[in-house]
């Protein structure tokens, strides 16, 4: 009991009375840092223009310890991809096809399935060893498999939410409940961003998630830390295009007038950094209007690059475009990028019905683009500083889900008790398998890695200590990893 208390964030906090209320609630490490910015600016009252940079909440901040990864690309298979059909081969499951789940393994709560009654279902996929490491990957991901020596395949992930929205909350924000900041928000809150002319945390969706925007929301952190949705059609960012009848040049004229008046207004209010911060925000907004379209314009990418990402093929065009955009974002200093495959209002990986068919279709959309992304990042020397994560809501059950949904059959239910997440880049040593599920792939049994541990690991690769990255809310220092995260894998994953 003592250990859980000492890590749950109910800690005394220094009484800091800083100017902006969000700074008051920063955790100890960054709070002091932010405070020192403010202290600095107290001496800079004479030149408010300089001081604005000091209160920029997105200014890059130093990490708790040296970082391996500077950016993250989180590839999220919405609905939950089956691990036993992709990255976690289970020979015993193949043998037990059609048989009832052994009682020793069936004491588990699932959404639709009564595990003790549902027959096991072998994978229809062929697994092969790849690379020097010889890690087995199924033919669903034959292109990604070519990179297996760069992947750390964590086969023993688990969490506690077996329906979509709470699992989405858990994987993204470390809590089953609503109202908690997503990982990207925590990262940007902790580190700021390198590229000041684009949003720090960008999300690319196909439609919407089953749990809606809170999945990339900032929860109780200030709203500015939430993920910004980037669209691949029409105008890329919300409100990024000047209204019709106004070009950028004309708008510049209006903005110059605005600036003149705002500076005039500040003449008698020079002490107020909020006012100068707002003037700076308009300048940044203007730059974003040019930079966002430039970033999303793929015209300068070569035909070879487009081919690499599978952009010109209909099946992989959409996801390929998003992967290529992700690389362009990384080049421009965007801190955290998330790409969803599938959505809550269209097809996704939720294979309750004909799981195998579903996964064939979904994997074709992403396999080539992901492989292309890894190749491209590597050849440009970006993979070392970019952490690529592949995962989803959860894995899927080795048994069929009993047709509780009235489908054709051949479906698999949700399985948060054991599933696979892999990572590449960001300084990690590839060609590794971490942990294992039981013989049929139902539960993580060897070296289990809770999602809190996974989050702690990701933060650590970014140079952040999950115990120190805190935010005071409702009397408690909250963190992404709640009371967990003690099994941080970073040490194990990093290159020697």
């Amino acid at each position, binding site marked *: 009991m003592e250990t859980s208390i000492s890590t749950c964030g109910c800690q005394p906090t220094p009484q800091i009375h800083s100017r902006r209320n969000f700074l008051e609630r920063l955790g100890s490490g960054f709070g002091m840092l932010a405070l020192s910015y403010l202290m600095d600016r107290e001496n800079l009252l004479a030149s408010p223009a300089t001081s604005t940079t000091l209160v920029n909440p997105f200014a890059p901040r130093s990490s708790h310890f040296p970082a391996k990864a500077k950016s993250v690309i989180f590839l999220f298979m919405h609905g939950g991809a089956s691990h036993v059909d992709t990255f976690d081969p289970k020979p015993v499951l193949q043998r037990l096809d059609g048989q009832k789940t052994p009682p020793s393994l069936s004491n588990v709560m699932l959404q639709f399935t009564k595990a003790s009654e549902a027959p096991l279902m072998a994978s229809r996929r062929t697994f092969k060893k790849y690379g020097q490491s010889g890690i087995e990957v199924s033919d669903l991901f034959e292109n990604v498999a070519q990179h297996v020596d760069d992947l750390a395949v964590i086969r023993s992930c688990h969490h506690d939410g077996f329906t979509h929205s709470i699992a989405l909350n858990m994987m993204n924000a470390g809590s089953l409940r609503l109202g908690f900041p997503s990982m990207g928000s925590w990262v940007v809150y902790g580190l700021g961003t390198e590229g000041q002319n684009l949003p720090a945390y960008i999300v690319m969706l196909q439609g919407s998630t089953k749990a809606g925007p809170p999945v990339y929301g900032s929860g109780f952190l200030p709203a500015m830390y939430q993920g910004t949705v980037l669209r691949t059609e029409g105008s890329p960012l919300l409100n990024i295009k000047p209204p019709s009848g106004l070009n950028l040049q004309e708008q510049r004229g209006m903005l110059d*007038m605005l600036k003149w008046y705002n500076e005039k207004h500040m003449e008698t209010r020079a002490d107020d950094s909020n006012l100068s911060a707002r003037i700076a925000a308009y300048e940044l907004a203007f730059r974003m209007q040019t930079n966002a379209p430039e970033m999303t314009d793929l015209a300068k990418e070569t035909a070879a690059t487009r081919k690499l990402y599978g952009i010109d093929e209909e099946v992989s065009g959409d996801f390929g475009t998003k992967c290529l955009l992700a690389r362009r974002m990384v080049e421009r200093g965007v801190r955290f990028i998330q790409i969803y495959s599938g959505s809550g209002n269209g097809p996704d990986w939720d294979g309750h019905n004909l799981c195998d068919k579903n996964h064939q279709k979904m994997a074709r959309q992403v396999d080539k683009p992901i492989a292309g992304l890894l190749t491209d990042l590597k050849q440009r020397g970006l993979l070392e500083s970019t952490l690529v994560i592949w995962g989803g809501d959860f894995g899927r059950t080795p048994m069929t889900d009993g047709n509780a949904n009235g489908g054709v059959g051949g479906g698999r239910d949700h399985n948060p008790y054991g599933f696979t997440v892999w990572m590449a880049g960001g300084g990690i040593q590839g060609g590794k398998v971490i942990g294992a599920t039981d013989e049929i792939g139902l539960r993580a049994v060897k070296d289990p890695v809770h999602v809190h541990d996974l989050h702690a690991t990701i933060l650590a690769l970014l140079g952040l200590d999950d115990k120190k990255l805190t935010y005071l809310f409702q009397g408690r220092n909250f963190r992404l990893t709640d009371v967990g995260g003690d099994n941080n894998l970073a040490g194990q994953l990093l290159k020697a």
Partner: protein
Amino acid sequence: MLNAMEKVRMLLGRSLCLLFLTGLFHPEILAQSRVLPEKTAKQILEAHCFACHGAAKMSGLDLRQRDTLLKGGSRGVAVVPGKAESSLLYKVVSGGGELRMPPGKDPLSEADQASLRDWINQGALWEEQSGKRVEPSWWAFREPLRRAVPDVKDKRWISNPIDNFILLTLDSKSLKPASPASKSTLVRRAYFDLWGLPPTPEQVKRFIEDSSPDAYARLIDELLASSRYGELWGRHWLDVVRYADTGGFETDIYYPDAWRYRDYVIKSFNEDKPYDRFVQEQIAGDELWPDTLELEGSYMMPKRKLEHLEARIATGLYTLGPVLHESGLDGEYLRSERLADMADTTGAVFLGLTMGCARCHDHKFDPIPQKDYYRMQAIFAGSQEKEIPIVDEMRVFDYKQSFPKLLAVDDLRAAVERIRDQARKRIIERLEAGLPREVVEANRVPSEKRSPKEIDLASEYETAIGGIKEGAIDAEYTQLEKQERHSLILKIGETYLKTPKRIPTASVLGHADMTPDVYVAKRGDFRNKGDKVGAGFPSVLCDGNDIAESSARPFVPQRRKEFALWLTQTDHPLTARVMVNRLWQGHFGRGIVGTANDFGTQGDPPSHPELLDWLAVEFVERGWSMKAMHRLIMLSNTYQMSNQYDSQNANIDAENHYVWRMNRRRIEAEILRDALLSVSGKLNLKMGGPPVIPPLSSEELAGLKDASQWPVSLDSAEHTRRGVYLYVKRSFRLPMFETFDLPESTFSCARRDTTNVAPQALALLNNEFVVKQAGEFAHRLIREVGNSVEAWIERGWWLGLGRSPSESERQKALQYFREKKETQQAQFSGTAGKPVPPQSLKEFCLMLINLNEFIYID
């Protein structure tokens, strides 16, 4: 209202709480006892330890009696008489081990440590004084006392007692109060503070030109008398109670009647409902003012029933929280989440305490043991949401009488579906004819009986036939079917128009058929049951007894009632303080306690403790009138200061902690929208009713799971109503509001964030709605002052900023218009001669609403 007997009982009755909060343990008496030359061990323990290890029994340790002290707690024996060095108590206060007490505070003085050591070594004896309760040591848990209003040197600065307290502190810190705000600043501040709207040019001018001494006081009275006041301050309250119109998560269920609670809140503020009554209604409206069960057969609601109805709607607070409910989830888990929402919300909103910290373990810094958290949950354990009709019974009968008309609609609908099925069947038959027989047959095998081969075959079937699109079915209809379908659909419409309208209902808190037992959930895990607990109040604030079942007849469950009455006792240490602090925060941007939802030891200490107490006592004595407090605060010179900077003051108090000037504040998301509509002349001041769903651009809608979840209100006049009436969807905040820091509505929000980021600038420059309002603003200028650049500038400044432009500002604007090559005249188009503003004017208007001065209030 409570009858007289009830009131007497409430005041005299049940609790020792009252006893210890008044008479015997007056802080002054305690203070005296603390300055005795030699403090006894008990006095030291009382001052530093009893808060947690007294009635609260944190870690099971109660130091108030010698026997319980010797018994120790969950960490083992606390005191070994004769052996200080082996006594845990001495170890933790002397810093000898890993565990240090008191947590998060300075260690005990060396003298106190020595006293404790000697006392233990001498056998740890003390004289028992039974029956005596101990005054909590934390200030917020003691009754607020009216302090004498302090004398100050500069009496000319004093407008009311608030100023005495403020000035005294300023003097003691060598801070000088800022100069008074100008009249034009003051009038703008007052409008935004009480209405959340900019004053019109006429309103500003009227105030400035009114030189009578009570002009300002009359202005405040006028503003408080308007319904705009309740809309603004109601919205503040809705932040605190985490209001939303849907339940969040994947299902994000719609709460059809949440708006009745929103309207109740606005009405309550407008009527200046006494805060104690306001609290009682929200927590226990149904138990204090239960349905009278009158079955009057008329079309009039019995009067008392109607009054009670309003109080019951107030309990809607507990029916509009976030609700997780998805198939397969454990029922007990879902229930534990709902009870947690109720307890956490109640703690934060009414007590200003972070009760949630005690969900998993004893609160580490406030004397709230885990047990108290579940005692609080138990108050709500037997309560359940109910949907009740809010019309008289005859109207309900009318509805049910006409119900067959609804059946006719169902019937017609079934007929339409039959035609659809017919067409679909033909498509399937055609497609099946083209498939191998085994595929068709495999599909006929019940899905749970299919062999793997049959599953494969069935999947081929599914691929070929599974996804028949609606369009394909539409194309399949024969001419006859089309006609038949069309006429059925028309008939559905006609028939539906004749059906009775849905009976208006309200969602309230009532009682479940049973009241389940509540157990401490060890480590917050509902599966891990600890001790059973009864319903009760936080033990540090009372005697720790359970709420007894009512013996009064007729019987009404009374857990929430007892809680509400206890909370609203006039000497309750928290209720009045917490609310006056919220009011203060609403006027100054920061409360006297900066953490409005945390009056515990981890919250900010009060900047002006005496003032806070004085206000709290004043609040109660003025009949818990919130309007009286607004008036008091706003008539103080403190409130009427300018926000002029002073470097000497800033060197001493950079954060303006001691209020040497007014804080400049950015207006909130809804207020910004209201202000845009106000200057554009399009604001619709209609009040109340179901949430308005405004149109959004397709890019704004992109984050929504299903566009049909955003059915835009049909009547476009609705779209320009005040922000407080817009739809609050938990899984999708209005993008514009979200950008401007609308709080997430999962937890109580004590104070909104204020951020300054580029997406806000983009929203105010490029958002369709904003640009449209800038255009309307331009139209309005032409409409009101004709076709003159000079007049546009003058009127634009007045509408947007409530003042004339300075000469240099005017020149700059004139230069801007001159530089624009296009004509500076409005064109008139169409036969009606509707003016079309030049682009330059629309840009000018857009510029005005983007000014810092537009969004920051001095």
